[in-house]
């Protein structure tokens, strides 16, 4: 009697497993495994900053005779591509040609052009203390600076160069 029960139990168990397997197989076959995605979180920090982008880094005043001048009409565009407003600061080096030179202050600048002559402000010497023009340049704003120069009397002939520094301070 006991043996009969055991056999019936085994047969029933086998039948159950077979039925379960038959149900599971088509179920799994119907699942569409297609796309697997994962995500990456990217971060970056944009600091508060003012930048200087100049329209040109070369100003050629051409040939200027002694006691002559190049009008304050040579434009250099300063754009602040930063995200806060700033003040424009300026300075420069003396003009140099080999062993000859003349003063930085012979360079005249202004925020407006003066085609007729050298009107405006004298450039200060680069000493590490740039001169604050008190002109505020806003975010994304373009400000034109116009430069001219005058050559002193008795200045030796030569090709003179000068470095002008334009700084946006914020």
């Amino acid at each position, binding site marked *: 009697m006991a043996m009969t029960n055991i056999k019936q139990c085994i047969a029933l168990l086998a039948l159950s497993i077979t039925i379960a397997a038959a149900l599971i197989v088509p179920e799994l076959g119907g699942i569409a495994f297609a796309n697997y995605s994962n995500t990456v979180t990217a971060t*970056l920090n*944009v600091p508060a900053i003012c930048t200087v982008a100049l329209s040109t880094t070369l100003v050629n005043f051409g040939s200027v005779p002694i006691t002559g001048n190049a009008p304050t009409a040579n434009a250099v565009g300063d754009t602040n591509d930063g995200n806060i407003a700033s003040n424009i600061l300026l300075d420069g080096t003396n003009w140099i040609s080999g062993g000859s030179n003349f003063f930085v202050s012979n360079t005249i600048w202004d925020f407006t052009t003066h085609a007729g002559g050298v009107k405006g402000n004298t450039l200060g010497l680069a000493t590490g203390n740039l001169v604050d023009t008190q002109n505020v340049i806003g975010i994304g704003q373009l400000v034109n600076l116009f430069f001219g120069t005058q050559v002193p009397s008795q200045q030796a002939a030569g090709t003179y160069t000068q470095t002008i520094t334009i700084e946006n301070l914020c």
Partner: protein
Amino acid sequence: MKVQKQRLAIITVTICILAGLLAPSLSNIAFALSQNSVTASVVVPTNCITQLSNTLINFGVINPLGNAPTANAVLDTNEGNVAAFILLDGTNWVSGGNSFPVTNTIWDFSTHAGGVSGNALQLLGAVTNTANIIGSGVNNILYFGALVNNGITQPAGTYTQTITIENEC
């Protein structure tokens, strides 16, 4: 006490007699082996699971009009059993109420330490199929860089973006 000992003796004798009767009876029973078989089956589906080496990229500090070169690596491993295409998309960069386009993120399968060369990431919903096949058990490295706009559109802040890397099979 004497009665208890007598009862115990009777029980002991009884058990011994039953054991003596039962033992030969069991030895005569024929235990026939009854066998049946079970057929088990399982379906292993095709898949192409995406396993990423890292889920964070920090591009650090980028000034307006600056960039982080296309050199930030994310290793994508296909842990599945079939080859897959790698698909990409992302969200716009957001910092509070400020944002800039998803396309400012640049990616490539090769690194560009010198700058942001490569392909522009597309907005979520416009998934880009890189047309790059990643085999089963194989890994591919994706490199990411980012560009920041000028200050007019890009106020200071910490910006985040979600990049989705998908293996499609």
